[in-house]
């Protein structure tokens, strides 16, 4: 296990390095002072001012040197400042990440738990009413774009509130503005806000996860050792829980890691639909404003989290399945 873990850790290092390179270079050639430049150059003595501005932002140096400086600052925990509002990128991220984390964690946990349950049940009861119903809904939600489902649930939530006469579902923001409540009140408010966006992501994720789990379970149920277990008279319930389920649960671990990047994309879209002030809005704003430092910091944070999540799922897989340690 130690050799396996070391190997996986060592592989992550170049991937992380690649992630920093991509995060930096993808937007490095964007001019963060495009607007100011146009204005300044129309003014007398503007050229010197542009040069001063460039020097203060380090734009006068060659690209590779800037990357080196950025990487050095990064190791000291500094990702630069936003050219839009002068705030440190790290503090912008520190505000946005917990908001988005709530959504990502809720979506992951519930879609995996329900996905496994639905997938296993529909595999065990293949071609029954239950299986056919879940297959139908899986196909339906699998074909749905996240942004459409999000907007539909938002619309339905508002209609429900109107009909009920009270606001049950919150459809805008991650929590009520200027909320003055104690710890429990704050979390109750947050849960009211997270319900619909989380449901959006869960339904979409669940469609794929349950199908994946279903076929994993079917593969196991058709294997020889299950037939052996049945032949020696192990009761059906025990065959499912003791023999089949344990091995059928393995693929979902790496699957969760592999789809994490897709989930991030879905979260960005969902946050935009429900007007959350999280990572999605931060990213969108930074792109539209040409706020290079923020975009780079954002890509880096997401890149690192994706690599780490995949490292964790790889290690977990190695822990659960001894076979992969020796390939």
């Amino acid at each position, binding site marked *: 296990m130690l050799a396996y873990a070391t190997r996986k850790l060592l592989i992550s290092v*170049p*991937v992380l390095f*690649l992630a920093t390179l*991509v995060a930096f270079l*993808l*937007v490095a*050639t*964007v001019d963060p002072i495009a607007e100011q430049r146009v204005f300044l150059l129309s003014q007398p003595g503007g050229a010197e001012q542009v040069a001063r501005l460039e020097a203060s932002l380090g734009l006068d140096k060659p690209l590779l040197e800037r990357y080196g400086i950025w990487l050095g600052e990064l190791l000291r925990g500094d990702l630069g400042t936003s050219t839009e509002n002068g705030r440190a990128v790290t503090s912008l991220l520190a505000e946005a990440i917990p908001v988005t984390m709530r959504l990502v964690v809720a979506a992951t946990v519930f879609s995996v738990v329900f996905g496994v349950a639905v997938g296993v049940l529909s595999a065990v009861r293949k*071609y029954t009413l239950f299986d056919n119903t879940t297959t139908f809904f899986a*196909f*339906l939600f*699998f*074909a*749905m*774009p*996240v*942004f*459409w489902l999000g*907007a*539909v649930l*938002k*619309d339905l939530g*508002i*209609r429900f509130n109107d009909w009920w006469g009270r606001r049950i579902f919150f459809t805008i923001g991650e929590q009520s503005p200027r909320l003055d409540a104690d710890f429990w009140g704050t979390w109750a408010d947050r849960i009211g806000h997270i319900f619909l966006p989380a449901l959006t992501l869960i339904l979409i994720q669940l469609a794929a996860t349950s199908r994946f789990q279903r076929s994993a379970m079917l593969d196991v149920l058709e294997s020889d050792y299950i037939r052996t277990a049945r032949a020696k008279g192990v009761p059906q319930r025990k065959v499912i829980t003791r023999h089949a389920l344990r091995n059928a649960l393995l693929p979902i671990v790496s699957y969760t*890691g*592999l789809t*994490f*990047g*897709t989930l*991030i*994309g*879905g979260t*960005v*879209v969902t946050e*935009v*639909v429900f007007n959350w002030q999280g990572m999605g809005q931060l*990213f*969108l704003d930074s*792109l*539209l404003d040409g706020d290079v430092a923020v*975009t780079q910091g*954002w*890509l880096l944070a*997401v*890149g690192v989290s*994706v*690599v780490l999540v*995949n490292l964790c799922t790889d290690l977990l897989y190695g822990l659960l399945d001894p076979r992969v340690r020796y390939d």
Partner: protein
Amino acid sequence: MTDLGSDISAHQVVVRAQWRTVLRRFGSHRLAVTALLLAIIGYAFTYFVEPLTGWNYKQLSADLSQGPSSAHWFGTDTIGHDMFAQSMRGLRVSIHVSIVVAAIATLLGTVLGAVQGWFRGRVDAGVGVLVDFLLILPLLPVLMVLATRTRAIGGSSLMFVAVVIGLFLWAPLARVVRGEVFAIREKEYIEAAAALGASNTRIIFRHLIPNVMSSVIVYATLTVATAILVETALAFLGFGIQPPEVSLGALVDEGRDSARTRWWLFYLPGAVLISLVLCVNFVGDGLRDALDPRQRKRP
């Protein structure tokens, strides 16, 4: 003594090529056939919208914000666009984009996967790093950045968006093809080809790739569905295809704020989009059943 030749002709041995078997099995999958027909008819229909309804997607009618009627099947938006013409245009754009994406991704995935599996060693490891990287890459944010970066050089044109998406979607197929090539490279017919002095190129393109076509076809269909969803999500966020060209994603984005008051602007383009993806997925499902002999028939 009976004549062997007449005996055979009496029993009518029917020679069936593999693709005929596949076609027959696909044909027996009613849902998949219906979906394929619907998609083809829908696509052909986009060329007959103007003669049938009298509207094209650019025209502005005097009816503003009208609900669905016999004149405007999907109603009109606030500036008088006929939503049916717009949705059908969006449908055609989505189909074009997704087919280009699937073509690029399938070509890259098949060839690179086969090269990985055949050469193994360093080539495998080198491409493998790229595959691993692309597999976990959060595609949407990266495409959003690329869209803003390339706007100046036509980054929001239809083909450009398609090519860029295609360059990012080949990794899953490459991994599958690599695995299958690993399995068949030890077979006698590959050994025989190599022993007869066939070049690497010949072995890869004439012997390996034709034998992994089942997975390639199924993945190509899946890629079409993914491409549609990615393209519309980009358009929804405002980073994809730009007006006056139409995308179903952009239509849904414009309609979502008025979902309660002018429902047709939001729900109808969305329904077209979902129907398209559903059809593609059903076709993919049917192809998988037809191409994969291990799949058992329903009892």
